[in-house]
């Protein structure tokens, strides 16, 4: 009796100790600073868009108190560079260029528009909308303001308002931009099929649109196809989108998510090889590395943890969804992931935000915490898997 009772504990005990030993061995050492031996060692590559931007000291010299138009142009370039690279430091540089006007309560309208854009990127949506309303009060037909407003309302989940803002673009922007704006809202309100057809038609009619707009539209088309369950079309559109314009880390991140969802992590490793700079891409890389058992996984997970911790210390909020995904899928901490995901949900309501809340809640065994989110998705009629299945899992359980 004794012997029979003892042995399973012993083996469990050995199992645990073996696992602990394995972890001890796998701890990583950080890189040490060094003095390079060769002068031609490349230490950093600047993004192509940044090479022509000049330095901040030149900017300060160019942009005096009276040189508003120079400041606006430079800030616009910097914001575009930040978008292409997914590097928010360029938003900070843009803020620096706009510094003479930044803290004014009623700055020039063109400054306000860029300030709204920068605030939006920092997930200060209230501040951004306040600026946009002021811009639209001064220039009711400002298409850029309407487009930015639509985008914010969309990520906030304020879909009726987003639809109105998209409609305001009519005849003020290229038909393809208007169609893309509206189709995105279609995709979130149970009309992905209609949105797909609308956008496909608009793309047909605009074969030579601006590359960045083309890329945005094709990326949207891919998302709609994926929501409709047509993986082949989504795949095709993602590839078309990547080929249509310059580098866009947001697009790369969404294509990587698409591949991960289809169980194709090896292709993500190829797509994102060496992409450790942007947090969003490093996250997808680490997710793929975990699935494939890649040796770089531990280093990349640790690097992400350091960055998210720094973002938390700085009181930033734009990282919450990515941090929740890392907590759940890289660190197996569902309760922590759920807290981060719910925190993120309180400011940002896209399908991907809902998805991580639902996944974390189910993994943590706290599906009740996700019921309001599931009901919200259901009420809007948002399409696409695995979101619908997750909603079903959450609402099917623990129901009164």
């Amino acid at each position, binding site marked *: 009796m004794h012997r029979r009772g003892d042995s399973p504990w012993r083996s469990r005990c050995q199992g645990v100790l073996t696992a*602990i030993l394995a972890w001890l061995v796998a701890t990583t050492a950080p890189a040490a600073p060094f*003095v390079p031996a060769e002068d031609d060692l490349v230490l950093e590559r600047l993004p192509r868009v940044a090479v022509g931007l000049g330095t901040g000291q030149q900017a300060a010299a160019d942009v005096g108190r009276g040189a508003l138009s120079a400041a*606006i142009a430079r800030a616009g370039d910097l914001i575009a560079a930040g978008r292409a690279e997914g590097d928010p430091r360029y938003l900070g540089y843009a803020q620096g260029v706009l510094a003479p006007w930044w803290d004014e309560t009623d700055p020039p309208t063109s400054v306000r528009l860029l300030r709204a854009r920068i605030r939006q990127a920092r997930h200060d949506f209230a501040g951004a909308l306040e600026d946009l309303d002021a811009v639209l009060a001064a220039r009711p037909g400002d298409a850029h303001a309407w487009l930015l407003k639509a985008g914010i309302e969309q990520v906030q989940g304020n879909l009726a308002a987003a639809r109105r803002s998209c409609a305001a673009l009519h005849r003020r922007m290229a038909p393809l931009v208007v169609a893309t704006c509206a189709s995105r809202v279609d995709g979130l309100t149970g009309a992905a099929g209609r949105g797909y057809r609308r956008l496909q038609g608009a793309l047909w009619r605009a074969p030579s649109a601006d590359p960045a707009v083309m890329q945005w539209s094709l990326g949207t088309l891919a998302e709609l196809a994926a929501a409709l369950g047509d993986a082949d079309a989504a795949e095709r559109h993602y590839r078309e989108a990547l080929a249509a314009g310059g580098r866009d880390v947001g697009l790369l991140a969404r294509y990587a998510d698409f591949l991960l969802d289809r169980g194709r992590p090896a292709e993500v490793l190829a797509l994102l090889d060496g992409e450790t700079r942007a947090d969003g891409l490093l996250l997808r890389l680490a997710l793929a590395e975990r699935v494939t058992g890649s040796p770089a996984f531990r280093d990349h997970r640790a690097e992400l943890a350091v960055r998210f911790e*720094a973002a938390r210390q700085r009181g930033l909020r734009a990282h919450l969804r990515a941090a929740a995904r890392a907590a759940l899928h890289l660190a197996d901490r569902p309760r922590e992931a759920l807290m981060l995901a719910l925190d993120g949900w309180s400011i940002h309501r896209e399908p991907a935000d809902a998805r991580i809340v639902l996944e974390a809640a189910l993994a943590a065994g706290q599906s009740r915490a996700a019921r309001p989110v599931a009901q919200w998705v259901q009420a809007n009629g948002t399409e696409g898997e695995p979101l619908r299945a997750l909603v079903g899992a959450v609402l099917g359980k623990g129901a009164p």
Partner: protein
Amino acid sequence: MSRAPSVARAIVVHLSCTLAMLAPITPASAHQPGASYLEVELEGARAQVRWDIALRDLHYALGLDRDGDGAITWGELRGRHPAIAGLALAGLRIAAGERTCATGLVRHLVEHRGDGGYAVLRFTADCGARGPDTLEYRLFATLDPSHRGLARIAANGRVTSAVLGPDRPALSLAAGARPWTAVATDYAREGVRHVWLGIDHLAFLVTLLLPAVLLRAGRDWVPRSGGRAVAIDAVAVVTAFTVAHSITLGAAVLADVSLPARPVEVAIAATVIVAALNNLVPFAPARRWLLAFALGLVHGLGFAGALAELGLPAGARLLALAAFNLGVEAGQLAVVAVLLPALYLLRRRPLYRPLVLGLGSAAVALLGGGWLVERAFDLQVWPV
């Protein structure tokens, strides 16, 4: 140029504006604006500084890419070392009272971080007679108002961290360090809280203690006669549990390992069932301490998960770990101290064995079974 904007310029403005405005509709992919990493070690009247500054930021400030090929090489960087040191030292002030501490020679190194290349500056600030008490950070304050210095200050073996920027440039070095007693108290309190709120740990321990006042005789239990034997048995069980969960807690935390929460929580529920079954159908009546040890290893992993969610303060990890563990022990000892005398007084009552040991253990087994199902299949079995 600004006086007479050309048509070309107007087009560029329009295009970059469209590009800029499309961005909200695509998710942000990086989250941290520019940052430098500042490590300051205080040693008496001196401060040893290591400062990592992103090459992209230095390029934006100084223009490092001399040949304009988009690559910053060591040669290009080396040629600008004096300018870099000048910019950096103008952006940092370490002072003792009114007096600014003199900075010595700057050593220039480089480092690759995941988010790009960094210049590493090492130097010593000498404050003369007394130690430095203030640090002010103004690097890139005008070029990038969102730039921050992420500072780690080490003094007397304690490390504090701070985020410095235009809105909060100054850091008091004297009061910067939180007293270690405050850190320890916080974590000890969290340890107690975790034991008292996570009743699975207590259910396990209490179940193992129920037979401590009894002695197995054949197929039955008889009350132990003296308090000494009871105490030895209880101390053996509690100590074994403590040692075991301290081992796994310490190993998991120090190795910085994160275990999947769900299997661990399921395993903890299973330990509760095993402990209860051992009272009903004893398979190790005299060696409950061994049971407490083996299963305690699993509970330690649960404690590690809880501690990981709290997070450990940089530089005081061992202290926080020890304090948390002591809190856990204090929490469980408080329960034992109340429970054991009561059991001791009750042990000769005729109803002790059928009611307390029998029914009590059965109830715990049922409770544990419910937890197991809840955690394994994500169901709500118990109302709490």
